[in-house]
């Protein structure tokens, strides 16, 4: 029988007015296992804590119960006091006789009886308590950022500035992401590249940032603080170290093809750099289009290169890195127009999506900022913008709001009206969602100053008639059918997770939702953490959002990483699951239940009779386990248990409370 001390707090009058604390401590003195019991005015005060410490030492107590306020208030206070007195803090339990007795009951007799019973049950719990020790987990202070868009760059710069090394992996040959493609940004209409270029340049030259563009993360093992990742560096066929960026190769290359960066609105060469401000400013040969790769002849680039840096024989490289934390900033793509049958399924050249409009409105784009329609290069006299193209549409499997379309459509219409003053801009919308600083004013400017026509209603169909696009919709405010002949139709297609996000999630063992956006650890309180400890989320990888919000979240994710790295090792809460290997049969029924993937099989060697046998058991990664205990219920034999809330403890508490 353990020597247990019981301390009953008066909490001034808060407890003592409805619970007879003296009676309680008196009764507990005679309770089996209780060696010491007393009551005190304010146990959380310094003298109160001193009393606890002194009593523990003087009586060599092996466990204590503090009957006071909610453990959410002072559990840590009393555990720290006990630890200072040499008692393992996890041998301290709190009985909540304030919030659960004195404050909620008015009959003193009832409240006292209940309080006494609660204390006794806690004594029973403490009898089954064990010493628990936090585990120190080593930590590699290096972060991997996946995605080189505005969110990934923000994270990289913040963490790098704090003095920690960063590896920034980007699947495209250059950083900048989607933002690099934008023309101007709402609600201020400043040009995207003007505000982005300083950032990309800084990322490019920062001594703490290792940039790996044209690369992908293909494997991740380990756990928080100690991940090992493999990065596949795809071949560029140009030795970027030697290359001086003169771009003679691009100029002389005879092969022209559609540019992905321009979203089909412009051309590029088979050896090219995506855009003039690209970081790194180094060309890449597209194996698919290059004449040499197809025919074995050409090599014009080799001839013109002054530094001899073309390497047709370059192969992909796999690089392994040890890192401590991962930030997923894989961004977004747009729902392909092909999935929107009612809007022509992508077969009309002059039905474009928002990003394509960005390119033709961009000063550095293929039309040098002159809004021309793709089919014949004419300046459109009438543009119809269709919002919620795929978003908020259950049938398209995208019931969510893409969040940025209301604002960028207003911006598109505005940019167009600023160029073509007599042009007609019509926007079909479901609702205008302009929640953000200066956003509503921005939309009002479009309506009032730039005379953009907003029609509330959906478009039923877009089709071609006599060489003109016809938009058939309904204005639900007037209830009338609307038929508009348009030169150009711009679809605000739904924001979807970047292609490959789901696979990336599987690689990193981070969950994604039905649509493929990464799941946050808690929708309210942990928006930048993923369910996998040590993996954080930033930007549109988690959900559609605009630039200011992305930057805020990215900064938050960076702060999380920096906080993690500010310690020399990680300390894990010992109140986590534990496996009794002697009992565990290794059935792993517990495994699918763990939300943190902390349970893995392990082969152990045991003695059976006079021979050694190998056997499978479940093991807990104490770094990943968060101590929810859901696994322990799945375990039939009770081999899986939860320290601090063990089966034994709960059962003893329960039995005592049922008396």
């Amino acid at each position, binding site marked *: 029988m353990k020597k247990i001390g019981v301390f009953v707090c008066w909490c001034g009058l808060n407890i003592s007015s409805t619970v007879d604390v003296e009676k309680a401590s008196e009764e507990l003195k005679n309770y089996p296992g209780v060696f010491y019991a007393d009551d005190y005015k304010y146990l959380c005060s310094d003298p109160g804590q001193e009393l606890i410490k002194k009593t523990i030492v003087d009586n060599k107590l092996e466990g204590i119960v503090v009957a006071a306020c909610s453990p959410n208030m002072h559990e840590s206070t009393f555990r720290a006091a006990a630890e200072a007195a040499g008692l393992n803090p996890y041998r301290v339990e709190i009985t909540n006789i304030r919030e659960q007795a004195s404050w909620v009951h008015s009959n003193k007799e009832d409240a006292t009886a209940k309080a006494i019973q609660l204390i006794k049950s806690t004594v029973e719990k403490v009898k089954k308590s064990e010493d628990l020790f936090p585990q120190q987990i080593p930590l590699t202070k290096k972060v991997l950022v996946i995605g080189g868009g505005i969110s990934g760059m923000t994270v990289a710069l913040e963490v790098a500035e704090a003095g920690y090394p960063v590896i920034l992996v980007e699947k495209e040959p250059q950083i900048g992401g989607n933002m690099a493609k934008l023309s101007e940004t709402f609600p201020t209409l400043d040009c995207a590249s003007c505000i982005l270029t300083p950032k990309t340049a800084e990322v490019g030259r920062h001594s703490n940032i290792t940039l790996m563009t044209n690369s992908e993360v293909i494997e991740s093992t380990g756990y928080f603080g100690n991940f090992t990742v493999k990065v596949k560096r795809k071949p560029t066929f140009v030795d970027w170290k030697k290359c001086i960026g003169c771009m003679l190769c691009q100029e002389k290359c005879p092969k022209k093809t559609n540019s992905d960066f321009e979203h089909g609105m412009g051309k590029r060469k088979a050896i090219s750099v995506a855009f003039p401000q690209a970081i790194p400013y180094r060309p890449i040969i597209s194996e698919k289009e290059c004449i040499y790769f197809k025919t074995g002849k050409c090599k014009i680039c080799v001839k013109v290169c002054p530094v001899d840096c073309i390497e047709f024989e370059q192969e992909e490289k796999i690089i392994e890195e040890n890192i401590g934390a991962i930030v997923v900033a894989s961004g977004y793509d747009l729902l392909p127009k092909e999935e929107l049958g009612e809007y022509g399924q992508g077969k009309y050249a002059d039905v474009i999506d928002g990003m394509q409009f960005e390119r033709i409105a961009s000063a550095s784009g293929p039309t040098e900022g002159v809004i021309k329609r793709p089919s014949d290069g004419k300046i459109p006299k009438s543009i119809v913008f269709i919002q919620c193209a795929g978003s908020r549409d259950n049938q398209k499997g995208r019931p969510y709001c893409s969040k940025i379309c209301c604002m960028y459509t207003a911006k598109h219409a505005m940019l167009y009206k600023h160029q073509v003053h007599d042009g007609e801009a019509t926007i079909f919308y479901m609702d205008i969602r302009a929640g953000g600083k200066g956003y509503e004013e921005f939309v009002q400017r479009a309506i009032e100053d730039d005379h953009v026509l907003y029609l509330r209603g959906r478009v039923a169909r877009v089709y071609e008639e006599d060489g003109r696009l016809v938009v058939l919709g309904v204005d639900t405010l007037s209830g009338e059918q609307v038929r508009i002949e348009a030169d150009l139709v711009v679809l605000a297609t739904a924001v979807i997770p970047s292609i490959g996000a789901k696979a990336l999630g599987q690689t990193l063992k981070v969950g994604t939702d039905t649509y493929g956006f990464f799941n946050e650890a808690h929708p309210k309180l942990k928006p930048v953490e993923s369910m996998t400890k040590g993996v954080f989320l930033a930007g549109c990888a988690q959900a559609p959002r605009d630039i200011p919000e992305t930057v805020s979240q990215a900064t938050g994710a960076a702060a999380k990483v920096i906080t993690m790295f500010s310690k020399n090792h990680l300390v894990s809460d010992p109140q986590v699951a534990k496996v009794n290997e002697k009992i565990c049969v290794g059935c792993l029924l517990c495994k699918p239940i763990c939300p943190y993937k902390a349970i893995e099989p392990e082969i152990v060697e045991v003695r059976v009779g006079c021979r050694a046998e190998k056997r499978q058991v479940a093991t807990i990664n104490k770094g990943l386990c968060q101590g929810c205990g859901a696994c322990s219920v799945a375990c039939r034999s009770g081999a899986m248990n939860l320290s601090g809330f063990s089966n034994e403890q709960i*059962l003893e508490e329960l039995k005592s409370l049922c008396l």
Partner: protein
Amino acid sequence: MSVEFKPNIICFACNWCSYTGADMAGTSRMKYPATIRIIRVPCSGRVNPTFVMKAYQKGADGVLIAGCHPGDCHYNSGNYFAKRRFLLATRFMTFLGIDEKRLRMEWISAAEGVKFARVMREFSETISKLGPNLRAREEA
């Protein structure tokens, strides 16, 4: 001579939501009957249906499992597992002849002190009406 029946009710409360909701009820000085005793657990997913049978055996007249609202679980999924387990366990206990009204599951958030107190009053009332549980109970 009849003695007034005072039910004995066990409430398993998830530390993050319902336990804090109970604290809220306390801080706001809301009253509920002294028939309820709370056992703090990290998550409703920690509650083994066997604990409930054990409670009946040892003399509980009612058992309440209080967890986070769906979607709010601190551990993301614990309450969903709890829901599955107790959907089955409650039906099974009823099948064995234990009144289904004696086991109740509630989603109570940390902000719902009012709900906590209301549920406690309601449940205490229900159990008072049902009277003491003598089924599957250890003979005194």
